[in-house]
């Protein structure tokens, strides 16, 4: 019987989130909690795997919270995990999706940073690795990927919030995902959740040229943005990272796209008020529920357009 009393409409500690992952995995036979690595401070990196069978099926990746202070993303990811699990067998799209593809969801991509936001500095964005030769800690994990690494929009200064790190994949949180994606070898979509400013972006960030799949990504992005808008009227801007927000080297989806994952999108979830990373918990459910149709729209497109 379900009933841990987990409240998807409030913010939680890492411990509570990880307990809920266990609960979801125990509740649904097709959900499994797997560890893909551990953080700099040795916290486990847990992924929920949604799989109804088959071997190395084409897969979709979803992550949240790589920038630790963006709390609404981790909270939304949990709601989404529960939604996927509970909709299988009742919702035609989710059922069809999971009958043909696997889904991997990493709800807390930067657990050290997340714990730090709870205990020491609510505005912390980066990892918590010690930078040799500097008094400062942490690397911006969305500047640490091996795609245009060290380019414009990333800082060389270890004290900066957008510090790219000493080398590409220097952060174990990034490297763990890279290793997992590479070893799996059959990811067809990669969706990463950030928050603040309502954007839906695709490659590139490190250069301002259009990707080869520009037309399809733009059209799919617009369709997903319309899906978001349909619930509460939240407006998302759509486009490549470089022209939509700013040029940024070493970003996640540039790496995934360069490594053959065509459907690579980065979402910046809502702030319809003026709260940013301090979005009140009353916004969690509206944020998650409006994001879900967009994610489903993309995932169904991926299912229907194999490559």
């Amino acid at each position, binding site marked *: 019987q379900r009933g841990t009393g987990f409240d998807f409409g409030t*913010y939680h500690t890492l411990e509570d989130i990880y307990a809920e992952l266990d609960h979801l995995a125990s509740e649904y036979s097709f959900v499994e909690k797997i560890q893909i690595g551990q953080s700099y401070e040795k916290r486990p990196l847990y992924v929920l795997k949604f799989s109804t069978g088959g071997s190395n099926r084409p897969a979709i990746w979803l992550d949240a919270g790589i920038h630790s202070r963006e709390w609404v993303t981790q909270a939304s990811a949990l709601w989404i995990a529960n939604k996927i699990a509970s909709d299988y067998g009742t919702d035609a799209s989710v059922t069809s999706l999971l009958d043909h593809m696997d889904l991997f969801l990493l709800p807390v991509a930067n657990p050290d940073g997340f714990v730090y936001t709870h205990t020491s500095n*609510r*505005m912390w964005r980066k990892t918590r690795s010690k930078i040799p030769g500097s008094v400062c800690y942490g690397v911006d994990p969305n500047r640490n990927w091996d795609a245009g690494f060290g380019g414009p929009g990333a800082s060389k200064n270890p004290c900066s919030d957008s510090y790219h790190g000493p080398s590409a994949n220097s952060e174990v949180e990034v490297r763990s995902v890279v290793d997992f994606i590479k070893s799996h070898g059959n990811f067809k979509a990669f969706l990463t959740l950030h928050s603040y400013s309502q954007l839906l972006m695709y490659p590139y960030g490190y250069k301002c040229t259009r990707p080869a799949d520009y037309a399809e990504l733009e059209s799919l992005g617009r369709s997903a943005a319309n899906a978001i808008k349909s619930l509460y009227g939240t407006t998302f801007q759509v486009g490549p990272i470089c*022209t939509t927000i*700013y040029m940024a080297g070493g970003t996640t989806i540039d790496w995934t796209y360069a490594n053959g994952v065509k459907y690579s999108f980065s979402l910046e979830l809502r702030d319809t008020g003026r709260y*940013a990373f301090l979005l009140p918990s009353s916004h969690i459910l509206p944020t998650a529920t409006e994001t879900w149709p967009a994610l489903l729209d993309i995932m169904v497109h991926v299912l229907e357009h194999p490559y």
Partner: protein
Amino acid sequence: LETFVGHQVLRVRTSNEEQVKQLQLLESLEHLQLDFWINPSASAVPVDVRIPAASVQSVKAFLESHGIEYSILIEDLQDVLDQEKQDMARAAQR
């Protein structure tokens, strides 16, 4: 626990590339300890920046002297954080 008493968040709107460059210069002034929530990139995109209490006046003076428009998004960040903490405590009790 780091506190954010007196920290303000400003939304800065630039009207041309020259003003964007001025903001990029501001970004490079490390002693101000600015936390750009949206970095300066193009004049069409607003820039949101958290400013520690000690730097608020300097930054506002900089913006005003260059004729750059801004508004206050968050008057005192710690007030919002305190509210969030209360909400979480209430939720935990529930």
